[in-house]
């Protein structure tokens, strides 16, 4: 045996081997199976020569997996975590350890996908139902969605919805001036795209008499004031405007809820319910409204229905509102929301219950009262008499000086203006923080203040009419799990109901459910990353700045773009930002009137929804029988709209999983007619290391860091959707009204503004993509792409004899995913793609993507992380299911009542008194022997979607009463 070198023994590239499923020997085996000799041959036959870029990616280092964490540790140490009293919608919070360990750090929660397959998602949907119930209770509204991207986005969505439902003909929206400034900035960007006029003023004194479609006020105000909103709400509704309230769930544990004052929409952030600030995100924004507006509500809503046995079962309700069905007529472009964070916030409420929340809110409020009283005794004026957690101090001409002094004592305050400081208390505020703060204001005199004494002396400052009784969270779920043991078991019970990546591969085409490496997840909970306020001064966030710079450099290298904006919180927000950037660029050239966006018929539904949000007109371009853009039709459309053409949105490789040969021509045609090319980067996983879109035509693209770059899907969010652009677009990328330097290329020119609340979006999860790229290095990233393509082609080859593979490139190969056709099966047996998808659950698998982009097909994307063993296991299951279908075709079993149409088979069927199915229990539950060893039991039978949409229930019902209703 040859002696190995030290370098070989060190195995510095070991991470690459761990991330990529198939071994080198497997790779050879798979290549032979598809009739090829080498990986190069496969790539030559799949990726068009014209776009190939074989220059190795300059992403290189000698760090091991462990060494990477050490390096990142050093980076984290450059962040200085001060005591945060800035407020403005971001607050210190104590994530209960039982939730940290059993949710945020648990692969069963963070590697799950959006609950499209209801039967295998009951656990996280129950958690989301808890979240919706919590939001409904605390806001006093009738209906809540399952989260939006952030508070600013939620406000913008509320504005858009107000315009849809208001009976007023006005295009003006009023914003009360005591709004979080970042929320206002996001509203301004959105209002401009929609052509709305924003009117900012004092809602209590300056509200116009007429000509508004909506009014937004913050409660409590951004600077702390607690005021009765009833007069504002009444006046707004008197002119047919919708009353929108931006609020704070913690404050609402003590304050009269906006719903009781008549609000139409209530939005805000649930961050301080146990989700770290994370330098801006991710956090779940909430959105609550009246029941009558349910069909106009943006975002996912979880609702109850019944399953095939008539038992209650959860599902995503009213999906026809959403972009994947309604396209340009959708209520919003949102897809991914913030499920993982909403789940955490919901669990925070479950764990603490109403008593616990009221105690926490009470402590925060008391700390604020004591702090204010102390400052008064030191001679400072407190501007508002009535506040919850935020006090505004009048310090004529001294705000900057005092804030600087506070920073010397490691406390960050909010400088509202030269004369005013804002001070916010939170769950983590300690007595000694208050004492230190006082000493910042008056070194000597502060020593005389006694917190214990003040505690006995301060009087309630919220008027009785604005306090609420403990009338919330009465559902049993908020009372049952208050011991750590019970809580731990409850979360385990829920997570066991679901299929996530820790159980089996999730072969969802277009979703890229690859491994989320454990090492990359570790840094996100380090306090230097987690406990950073987004508006902390830049000199305290140098570690983050280094992280952004290095991540942007790696992303530019991988994509060929020149600049990156990390601000967009999801792919959909990336699309919106990218299109706005294009429009701003065109505007700078005096072509602001260009507003036509060409979108191929095969596009993701998000594309047209985003184009509409960017104020554009959608023109659909035909596709040929192979799913490729019809180049002749594109030419015709581009010529027809040459004077108004702004952009083409194109997914590459296509949504049909094929590298279109004509892509360069397509980009040229659009450029020749004065438009820009937007590439939807959803399928970037097929290109990293092989081709660089910034070099072959597209001007801008978004990247789904939660697909290609290993951020987990979290059961439906968080996502991160940065956009990469060519140099000419860079000056117009998003910036931020509160933090300088977010877009260094702007050079003082006007950009598109802010698209998200936080300057760098969901900053705290960027270490995941950074770690992934850093550990994979250039050659590992390329190999990942090659293996992703190999895995897809291997599956296509194995499945094709059973289910015809639709769409291949010119040499008969697919890209990183394949579409298998179930239309012939439907024709011959009546078995639908849904039957196959649900039958896969009995085999322990999550189904592939159903009916996208072609109805009655399944789209399969294995990713590079799945091993040959797992891929064969899925192929075997699908092939065996094909045999089950054959029995139907041959008439051996009933067409309506068989093992497929009745799938999935939940465990309670086992105990039916009589087994009345025309097949055995063994076939129903254990179609393959391996299942005896490890069986996934679906908690419910097939969910009845029609029943759920006809009888919408989206708060926690008493289970017994619901069962009666179902009967």
């Amino acid at each position: 045996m040859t002696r190995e070198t030290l370098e070989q023994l060190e195995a510095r590239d070991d991470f690459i081997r761990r991330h990529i499923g198939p071994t080198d020997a497997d790779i050879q085996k798979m290549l032979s199976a598809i009739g090829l000799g080498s990986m190069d041959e496969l790539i030559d036959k799949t990726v068009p020569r014209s776009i190939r870029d074989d220059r190795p990616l300059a992403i290189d280092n000698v760090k091991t997996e462990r060494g990477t964490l050490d390096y990142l540790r050093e980076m984290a140490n450059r962040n200085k975590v001060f005591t945060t009293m800035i407020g403005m919608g971001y607050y210190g919070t104590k994530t209960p350890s039982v939730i940290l360990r059993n949710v945020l750090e648990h692969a069963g929660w963070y590697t799950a996908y959006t609950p499209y397959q209801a039967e295998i998602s009951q656990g996280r949907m129950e958690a989301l139902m808890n979240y919706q119930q919590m939001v409904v209770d605390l806001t006093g509204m009738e209906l809540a969605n399952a989260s939006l991207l952030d508070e600013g986005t939620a406000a913008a969505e509320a504005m858009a919805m107000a315009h849809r439902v208001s009976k007023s003909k006005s295009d003006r929206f009023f914003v009360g001036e005591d709004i979080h400034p970042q929320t206002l900035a996001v509203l301004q960007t959105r209002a401009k795209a929609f052509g709305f006029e924003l009117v900012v003023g004092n809602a209590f004194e300056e509200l116009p008499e007429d000509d508004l479609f909506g009014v937004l006020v913050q409660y409590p105000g951004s600077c702390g004031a607690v005021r009765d909103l009833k007069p504002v709400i009444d006046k707004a509704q008197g002119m047919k405007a919708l009353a929108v309230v931006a609020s704070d769930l913690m404050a609402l544990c003590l304050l009269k809820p906006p719903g009781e004052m008549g609000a139409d929409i209530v939005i805000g952030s649930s961050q301080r319910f146990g989700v770290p600030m994370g330098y801006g995100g991710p956090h779940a924004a909430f959105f609550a409204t009246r029941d009558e507006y349910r069909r106009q509500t943006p975002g996912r809503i979880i609702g109850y229905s019944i399953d095939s046995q008539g038992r209650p079962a959860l599902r995503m309700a009213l999906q026809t509102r959403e972009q994947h069905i309604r396209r340009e007529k959708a209520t919003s472009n949102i897809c991914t929301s913030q499920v993982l964070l909403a789940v955490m916030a919901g669990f925070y409420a479950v764990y603490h219950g109403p008593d616990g929340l009221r105690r926490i809110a009470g402590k925060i409020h008391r700390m604020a009262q004591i702090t204010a009283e102390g400052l008064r005794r030191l001679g400072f004026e407190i501007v508002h008499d009535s506040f919850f957690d935020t006090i505004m101090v009048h310090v004529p001409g001294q705000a900057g000086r005092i804030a600087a002094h506070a920073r010397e004592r490691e406390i960050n305050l909010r400088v509202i203006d030269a004369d005013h400081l804002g001070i916010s208390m939170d769950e983590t505020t300690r007595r000694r923080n208050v004492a230190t703060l006082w000493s910042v204001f008056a070194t000597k005199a502060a020593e005389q203040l006694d917190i214990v004494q003040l505690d006995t002396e301060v009087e309630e400052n919220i008027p009785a009419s604005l306090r609420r009784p403990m009338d919330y969270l009465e559902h049993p779920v908020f009372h049952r799990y208050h011991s750590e043991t019970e809580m731990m078991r409850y979360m385990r019970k829920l997570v066991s109901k679901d299929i996530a990546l820790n159980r089996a591969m999730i072969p969802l085409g277009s979703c890229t459910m690859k491994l989320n490496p454990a090492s990359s997840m570790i840094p996100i909970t380090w306090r230097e990353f987690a406990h950073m306020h987004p508006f902390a001064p830049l000199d305290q966030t140098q570690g983050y700045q280094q992280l952004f710079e290095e991540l942007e450099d790696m992303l530019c290298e991988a994509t060929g773009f020149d600049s990156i904006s990390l601000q967009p919180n999801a792919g959909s927000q990336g699309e919106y930002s990218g299109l706005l950037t294009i429009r701003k660029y065109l505007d700078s050239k005096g072509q602001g009137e260009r507003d036509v966006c060409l979108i191929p018929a095969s596009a993701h539904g998000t594309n047209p929804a985003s184009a509409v949000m960017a104020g554009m007109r959608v023109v659909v371009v035909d596709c040929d029988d192979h799913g490729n853009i019809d180049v002749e039709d594109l030419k015709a459309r581009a010529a027809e709209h040459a004077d108004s053409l702004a952009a083409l949105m194109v997914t590459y490789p296509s949504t049909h999983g094929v590298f279109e040969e004509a892509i360069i021509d397509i980009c040229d045609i659009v450029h020749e007619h004065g438009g820009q090319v937007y590439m939807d980067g959803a399928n970037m996983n097929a290109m990293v290391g092989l081709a660089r879109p910034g070099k072959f035509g597209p001007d801008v693209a978004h990247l789904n860091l939660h697909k290609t770059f290993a951020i987990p899907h979290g059961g439906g969010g968080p996502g991160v959707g940065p956009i990469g652009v060519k140099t000419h677009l860079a000056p117009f990328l998003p910036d931020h009204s509160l933090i300088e330097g977010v877009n260094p290329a702007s050079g003082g020119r006007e950009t598109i503004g802010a698209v998200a609340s936080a300057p760098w979006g969901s900053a705290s999860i960027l270490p995941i993509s950074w770690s992934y790229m850093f550990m994979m290095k250039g050659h590992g990233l390329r190999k990942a792409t090659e293996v992703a393509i190999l895995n897809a082609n291997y599956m296509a080859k194995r499945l094709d004899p059973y289910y015809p593979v639709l769409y291949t490139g010119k040499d008969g190969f697919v890209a990183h995913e394949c579409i298998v056709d179930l239309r012939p099966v439907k024709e011959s047996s009546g078995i639908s793609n849904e039957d196959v998808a649900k039958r896969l659950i009995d085999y322990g698998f999550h189904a592939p993507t159903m009916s996208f982009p072609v109805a009655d097909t399944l789209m399969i994307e294995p990713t590079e992380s799945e091993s040959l063993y797992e891929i064969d296991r899925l192929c075997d299951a699908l092939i065996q299911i094909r045999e089950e279908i054959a029995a139907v075709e041959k008439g051996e079993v009933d067409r309506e009542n068989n093992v497929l149409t009745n799938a999935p088979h939940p465990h309670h069927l086992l105990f039916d008194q009589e087994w009345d199915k025309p097949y055995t229990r063994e076939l129903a539950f254990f179609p393959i022997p391996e299942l005896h060893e490890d069986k996934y039991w679906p908690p419910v039978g097939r969910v009845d979607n029609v029943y759920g949409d006809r009888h919408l229930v989206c708060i926690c019902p008493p289970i017994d009463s619901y069962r009666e209703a179902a009967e």
Partner: protein
Amino acid sequence: MTTKYSEDHEWITVDGDIGTVGITDFAQQQLGDVVFVELPEVGATLDAGDEAGVVESVKAASEIYSPVTGEVTETNGDLEDKPDTVNTDAEGDGWFFKIKLSDSAELDDLMDAAAYKEFCAEQG
């Protein structure tokens, strides 16, 4: 009474100057189980081809267009609680709205039953 059909799969049965509008049986089959119908407001004036409402199944949502110009005089409130009537009796109890025709000549632009049947056959 005459019944005519549009290319958007609406039917209209005219009695005097009042037309009753719904979607055809072919359309309801294409949609699947209807879960919700959004109807126009009584008193609304619509041009032929204007969007008059939305019909939703679990997987699809389609706009309903008014086949003629006129003023909406009545809507079928029963559909609010029983949207499945559109599936069970699309061209009867599953009607959507009644409209007072401004110009009965517009009916000439619509198909009769035989032409519509042929139209559907072409659509497969």
